[in-house]
């Protein structure tokens, strides 16, 4: 218990979480603080490139084995299956229409790469190693949940033209993440020594600015759409990451991942998408209310994972492995 409290308070008082809180508070008190669109996009490109590159360098140093293939497969299955659980939970806890419940469920099968980055930063600050190639698992987990969400909504396709699968599967985030992963893998530690001045040293500071922006977006969403978040929906937004997180940790444990790896896979399974899936849902299920899934993923689940969830998943992972 003391471990949990110590880890949670250390995490809560980290510059990353406090930057998010600043953004959230600024938006809630209607400050005119804002991050320009181009800066936010630039920061997101930087973070994706840096995290992908680091993962690739890790693989170059440790080598590729069957465990990676198994983990990719597990990630795919988790992404496809978690929306089923989320949908069932939504039907029990809320009175959402079928199409809204399916759209929300899809977000909880997919992942939030910023939550992944926050978890990896916490692990690094604790000196806990994790399998760097889990970034590839994160990329694999982006899309399968969308297919399950469509199936849950009773759709086999989206309208006359169908879903733009090529654009979704090759969206900018996935291409950048996997491309940087490949560059890191090819160039290895030598490549890293050439670019670490940009990709390693300023990383945490820039992550703080990005999270400041995420706080602003979450705060604006909460301010404008708080009336949509009924108690059952809020409960779902807090319960689902815990359930998904435990399933992710147990899956990683079955695979034989390290303590850090379990915490990361748990975090991935616990996180909810707010970039790839919302855009896909607007095309595939336009009848679903975007304010519900965006506010829930960004305004409830993301802050919950950032402030408490990640520390909790790490604690469970430590307990399981005895570290």
């Amino acid at each position, binding site marked *: 218990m003391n471990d949990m409290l110590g880890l949670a308070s250390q995490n809560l008082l980290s510059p990353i979480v406090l930057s998010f809180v600043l953004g959230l508070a600024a938006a809630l008190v209607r400050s005119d603080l804002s991050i320009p669109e181009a800066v936010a996009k630039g920061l997101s490109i930087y973070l994706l490139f840096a995290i992908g590159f680091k993962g690739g360098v890790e693989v170059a140093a440790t080598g590729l084995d069957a465990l990676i293939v198994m983990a990719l497969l597990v990630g795919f299955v988790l992404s496809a299956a978690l929306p089923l659980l989320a949908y069932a939970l939504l039907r029990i806890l809320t009175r959402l229409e079928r199409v809204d419940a399916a759209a929300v469920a899809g977000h909880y099968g997919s992942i939030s790469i910023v939550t992944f980055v926050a978890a990896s930063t916490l692990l690094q600050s604790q000196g806990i190693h994790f399998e760097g190639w889990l970034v590839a698992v994160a990329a694999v987990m982006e899309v399968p949940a969308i297919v399950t969400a469509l199936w849950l909504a009773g759709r086999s396709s989206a309208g006359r033209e169908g879903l733009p699968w090529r654009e979704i599967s090759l969206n900018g985030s996935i291409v950048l993440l996997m491309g940087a992963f490949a560059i890191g893998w090819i160039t290895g530690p030598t490549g890293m020594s050439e670019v670490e001045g940009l990709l390693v040293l300023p990383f945490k500071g820039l992550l703080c600015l990005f999270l400041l922006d995420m706080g602003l977006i979450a705060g604006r969403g909460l301010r404008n759409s708080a009336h949509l978040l009924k108690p059952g929906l809020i409960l779902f937004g807090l319960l689902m990451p815990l359930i998904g997180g435990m399933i992710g940790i147990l899956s990683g444990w079955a695979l034989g991942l390290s303590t850090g790896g379990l915490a990361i896979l748990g975090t991935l399974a616990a996180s909810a998408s*707010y970039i790839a899936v919302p*855009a896909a849902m607007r095309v595939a299920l*336009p009848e679903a209310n975007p304010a519900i899934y965006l506010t829930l993923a960004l305004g409830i689940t993301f802050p919950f994972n950032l402030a408490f969830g990640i520390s909790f998943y790490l604690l469970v992972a430590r307990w399981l492995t005895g570290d």
Partner: protein
Amino acid sequence: MQTHHAKRIEIIIETPALRTLRRALERAGVKGYSILPVMGGRGRSGSWSREGEVGIASSMVTVLCLVTPERADSVLEAVFEVVERQIGIVTVSDVEVVRQERF
């Protein structure tokens, strides 16, 4: 100067649906159109702003096109097929153009 009647069709639509709309316009024989970003606004789903958005899900764009009055109905039908399921606004206005052959 000699001017000619034309219809100006303005479509405000969610960015994720832009690709589908562009295809529909091109299939309907629209020779050209312009796309403008929308900074923010308020609608039935609440307020939104372009500032700081990390994804395109809640952003919107305006598509402007000019067509001859004879072609306007078929273009509007094509546009409506896309817009009817999405968040969006379609307006049509009468305008004068100088170079009729371009529309």
